[in-house]
């Protein structure tokens, strides 16, 4: 194009003055560094978290077990200890990683599309909706339909929240969060009622696990479900960074940048409902992960989504691995629903975001 061609020599001069500060917040070097650090941290977290628990295990034991199961070495652990690593703790840690990564991705996508810093699958009611879907099919003995039902529940809750917020005067952060609160309350109550009506023994624990989220039942089937959803839905969402960037100035600006706004928004919100559904089906409604991690990552690498999405996913995985390790060991032998700990961190983060939103109207 010809428009500013005559000024290119000046531009080159300006460009050469700037790289000295390129590594600052938002610079690609910083994002790549953070990404590599988080990948290393994630690998280390998986191995270390598996060693933690009542039966003492060393990182070397865990690596040996992993190697043996991947066919890379001889089994050196006793079958009992190998079972603890491979059948109990490893699936739980991997499920935590997948759920944490997926919830963080959902949070980023929802925050960008609704231009609402407080958007998160839990706060907007998707998690409660997914819980209802999951609990209903489990009660009916239709476990094969679990992901589909959880997805349907999440989608219904999302439609209810956005519909209610729109009817109440638009998708402002306040109305959206209030609508999410109303929807969560109703869907949470339905979950509790269904469990209470159907369960024979420990219904309170069961209700708590669905409402607050718990990874205590995570097995390899859970890894497949959560990991599969992460691969099939979460990873494609990682490529939407530029599209999400285009929404920074709102729908009109996104449209003027070539984005088909209604179609894109519908497609991406349905994808977050799908991902949330699969995650909630294995973990219950774990709150605030989609709120805490994206905002923490923004502080380090800025708001551009091409960096924010993958880094939030990695940070979410690491975060939930350690919070869940705390949930299963802090009050050993009793277990906390992991959502209690995420809420303990997430509540203050929510409050801080609220205060910041007030300062910049």
């Amino acid at each position: 194009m010809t428009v500013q061609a005559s000024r290119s020599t000046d531009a080159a001069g300006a460009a050469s003055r700037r790289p000295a500060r390129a590594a600052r917040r938002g610079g690609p070097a910083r994002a790549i560094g953070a990404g590599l650090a988080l990948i290393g941290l994630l690998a280390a977290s998986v191995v270390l978290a598996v060693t933690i628990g009542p039966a003492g295990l060393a990182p070397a034991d865990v690596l040996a077990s992993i190697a043996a199961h991947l066919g890379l070495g001889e089994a050196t652990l006793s079958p009992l200890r190998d079972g603890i690593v491979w059948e109990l703790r490893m699936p739980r840690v991997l499920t935590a990683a997948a759920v944490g990564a997926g919830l963080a991705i959902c949070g980023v996508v929802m925050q960008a599309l609704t231009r609402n810093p407080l958007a998160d699958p839990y706060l907007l009611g998707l998690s409660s909706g997914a819980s209802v879907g999951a609990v209903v099919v489990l009660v009916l003995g239709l476990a094969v339909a679990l992901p589909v039902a959880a997805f349907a529940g999440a989608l219904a809750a999302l439609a209810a929240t956005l519909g209610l917020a729109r009817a109440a005067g638009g998708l402002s952060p306040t109305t959206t969060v209030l609508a999410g609160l109303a929807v969560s309350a109703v869907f949470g109550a339905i979950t509790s009622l269904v469990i209470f009506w159907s369960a024979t023994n420990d219904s309170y624990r069961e209700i708590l696990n669905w409402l607050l989220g718990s990874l205590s039942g995570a097995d390899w089937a859970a890894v497949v479900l959560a990991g599969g959803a992460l691969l099939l839905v979460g990873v494609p969402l990682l490529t939407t960074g530029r599209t999400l960037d285009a929404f920074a100035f709102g729908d009109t600006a996104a449209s003027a940048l070539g984005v088909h706004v209604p179609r894109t928004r519908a497609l991406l919100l349905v994808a977050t409902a799908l991902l949330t559904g699969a995650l909630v089906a294995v973990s219950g409604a774990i709150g605030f992960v989609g709120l805490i991690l994206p905002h923490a990552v923004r502080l380090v690498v800025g708001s551009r989504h091409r960096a924010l999405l993958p880094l939030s996913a990695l940070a979410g995985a690491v975060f939930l691995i350690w919070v869940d390790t705390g949930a299963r060991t802090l009050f050993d032998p009793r277990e906390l629903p992991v959502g209690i700990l995420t809420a303990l961190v997430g509540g203050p983060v929510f409050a801080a975001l609220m205060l910041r939103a007030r300062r910049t109207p």
Partner: protein
Amino acid sequence: MSALRPGAGLEASRVSFARGSRLVVDGVDITVPRGAVGALLGPNGAGKSTLLHLVAGVEAADVAALTLDGDDLVSLRRRERARRIALVEQDVQAPTGLRADHVVGLGRIPHQSAWGGDTSRDREIVARSMLAAGAAEFAERRYDELSGGERQRVNLARALAQEPELLLLDEPTNHLDIRAQLATLGLLRRLADDGLSVLAALHDLSLAASYADHVVVLANGAVVAAGPPAAVLTPELIRTVWGVEAHVLRHPSTGRPLIAFAERADGHAAAASTDGADAAATSVIAGPGGPEGFAP
């Protein structure tokens, strides 16, 4: 880059758009030749913003023939259109935490694939656009911490980073101090002289008259008058469209029209009709003469 040829620039004809049962834009014809600055004038609610949105493709016109350099815009793919037309909105809500140069980088989106980083060409165009718009010195500051005038320069740089052939602006001088207003319009003038076509909705008639090659006056969604500022901006037209009394003077140094609004002795602007919005529709009902008519 398409070569300059007859009919180059924007040609819009019979553009119509209804919202509900109300015809917001009613059969508008408008032409902005390549390298020209066109000013879109008219009272609030005349359809200026909507018309810009229709040309930008943000909203789809019910009826329209739109061509840019002879290419049909209506059938153009959204992304392709975004590479040729940039829109600077008015009063955008500032995203928090985004750096100014990243805001400008948004303008590269129509040129980029979904996956992969910014190329050196992207970075060069962002830097060049910021320089052209006078925004280079605050490249690394946060957009939401800039002043109104600085933000507007960043917005312009973002539009330039799209490498458009046509630049649309919705009241780009809104909320700016006079220095920033003149800087903005001067920049648009220079960009047009370099070959960009510019169409801007403006409120200030004198500023429009000094910077635009031609003006298009809209009222109730339809074109009332169009042409060079000196031919269009007459006291009669201003009274008809805005319902106010005005003297059209000559700018002492440029010779362009300079609009002075008549004022009554009690300090209130002399409105030709009590309701400015109705004035366009009931154009013949002008007030009882000029300021003298109201003298106590």
